[in-house]
């Protein structure tokens, strides 16, 4: 099977700092993969490389059989990668519903003229976008908050809204950057179920960064471990838990 995402020898330098070096990973269609590592290991940088926020200093990133290194973020999203942000980036002054509607953007086909004169596909497509947005919101138990201003949502709900919004872009690959950060154990548990469920419902492939080990070990099929920008281990949750390199990286000192 062809991997959906494959990075080969990707390097990212920030001045003299090698944030990511010789980064090789592959993700097969339908997989649920974890990316873990200590603070500052380069996990978010890897996401920024995959989504075009940063350009790799060298190396290639293949998505769906095409090299996407060098494309702009919106082009990559249109090709089928959507993401959430570690430091939540909602459209905080807008309503919860509008946050999701915005993300349907590249699937709306009516032209500016059709919008201005309110003819043609305008009404049908707007109705569809609104209906689909409500459907996504109800999946994430946010539908009763649809008219609420996004910034007024509790933290956990904001994280769920970010996932709902990313799904509105209809991605093949979903990148989640610490989706459980700031959630209590109960919320984290519900989130785990939800991630599994949307993977099946939306036939998604998911790559997630997470510090909560119960979540990572609980749902990921394979895990990559990053330290100082390098992948130090890769395998199933059991293999990772017993890997001396990983134990050393997390606990410090000699294994």
């Amino acid at each position: 099977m062809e991997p959906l995402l494959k990075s080969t020898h990707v390097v990212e330098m920030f001045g003299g700092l090698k944030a990511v070096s010789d980064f090789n990973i592959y993700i097969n269609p339908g997989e649920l993969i974890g990316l873990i590592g200590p603070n500052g290991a380069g996990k978010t940088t890897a996401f920024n490389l995959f989504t075009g926020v940063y350009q790799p200093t060298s190396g290639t990133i293949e998505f769906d059989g095409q090299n996407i290194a060098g494309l702009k973020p919106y082009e990559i999203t249109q090709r089928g990668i959507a993401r959430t942000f570690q430091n939540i980036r909602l459209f905080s002054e807008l309503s919860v519903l509008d946050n999701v509607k915005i993300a349907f953007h590249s699937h709306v086909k009516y032209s500016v003229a059709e919008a201005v004169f309110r003819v043609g596909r305008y009404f049908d497509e707007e109705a569809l976008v609104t209906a689909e947005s409500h459907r996504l919101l109800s999946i994430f138990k946010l539908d009763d908050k649809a008219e609420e201003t996004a910034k007024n949502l509790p933290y956990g709900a904001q994280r769920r809204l970010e996932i709902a919004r990313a799904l509105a872009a209809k991605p093949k690959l979903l990148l989640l950057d610490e989706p459980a950060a700031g959630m209590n154990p109960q919320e984290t548990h519900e989130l785990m179920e939800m991630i599994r469920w949307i993977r099946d419902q939306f036939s998604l492939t998911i790559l997630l960064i997470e510090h909560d080990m119960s979540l990572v070990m609980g749902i990921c099929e394979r895990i990559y471990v990053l330290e100082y920008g390098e992948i130090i281990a890769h395998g199933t949750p059991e293999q990772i838990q017993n890997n001396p390199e990983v134990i050393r990286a997390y606990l410090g000192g000699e294994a």
Partner: protein
Amino acid sequence: MNSVQKNDLRLLVFGVVLFAVIGGAMEGGFIGSFWKLNIILIGINVILSASLNLINGYTGQFSLGHAGFMAVGAYVGVILTTNFHLPLIAGMVGGGLAAAVLGFLIGLPTLRLNGDYLAIATLGLGEIIRIVIMNIQYVGGAAGFSGIPHLTTFPWVFATMLLTLFAIKNFVNSSHGRACIAIRENEIAAAAMGINTTKYKVLAFTIGAAFAGVAGALFAHCFYIISPGSFTFMQSFNYLIMVVLGGLGSLTGSIAGAFVVTALSAALADWPEFRMIIYALALILLMFYRPQGLFGYVELTKLAPFSRLRGLKGGREE
């Protein structure tokens, strides 16, 4: 007919009634020529502040060059009507198109800049436009272009104003307008949601410039002579005050801002120094008590007594 269309119809009826009342008062001789001109100017300024609001309020790009686009529309308009004897509508369309083309050409490189840098660049470009016009002898240079036929009438202005307001309202309530609002809210997130941020910034800038051009053509045909002096950066600043006073991201605000500022400067025409003091005081009070402007990010049509529609943020309406 769905609720959106019903609401559009309601607004249209309101517009027609307002037109009949003001137009009737003008025809009936209840309004003197000084206020007739100022009512026409209010209509033109609504077009200018609403179109500037599309750029500054909805898309969040700080433009200070609106008078420049207005000047282009004014001069192209008067060339078409005065030198080529075409009707006003041709002058308006020609002026709007010329301003749109220039807006596109200027927007493409400058919209890479952010915040203050964009403000400075657009301010400079607005001034450059004015100085270039000043040096073209064909349009009369610094002395101005004279012999303009007095073609602008209240019905023309009112109809164009309504058309502009509907066009901008419909635009911001579409996926294209949401893209612009998303850029204002968080540019990185907007791009991550598949929005071509450069394209939409340039689009908003171009549409804004086009309407400024149309307004410029209407403005020019109110007078016998226009000169580059009518389009200085102080003029751009005036439109900015209308937008900020009325409220960013609100068309109701643009109407209110244009009305208040234009009526105020007309009422204080004989005491121009008072005008600046009142502006300054108004802006200071605004900063303290209502930093978002009179109608920041809300529309009157969404407030409870006006409709049963749900209130959405971002100056939207359905």
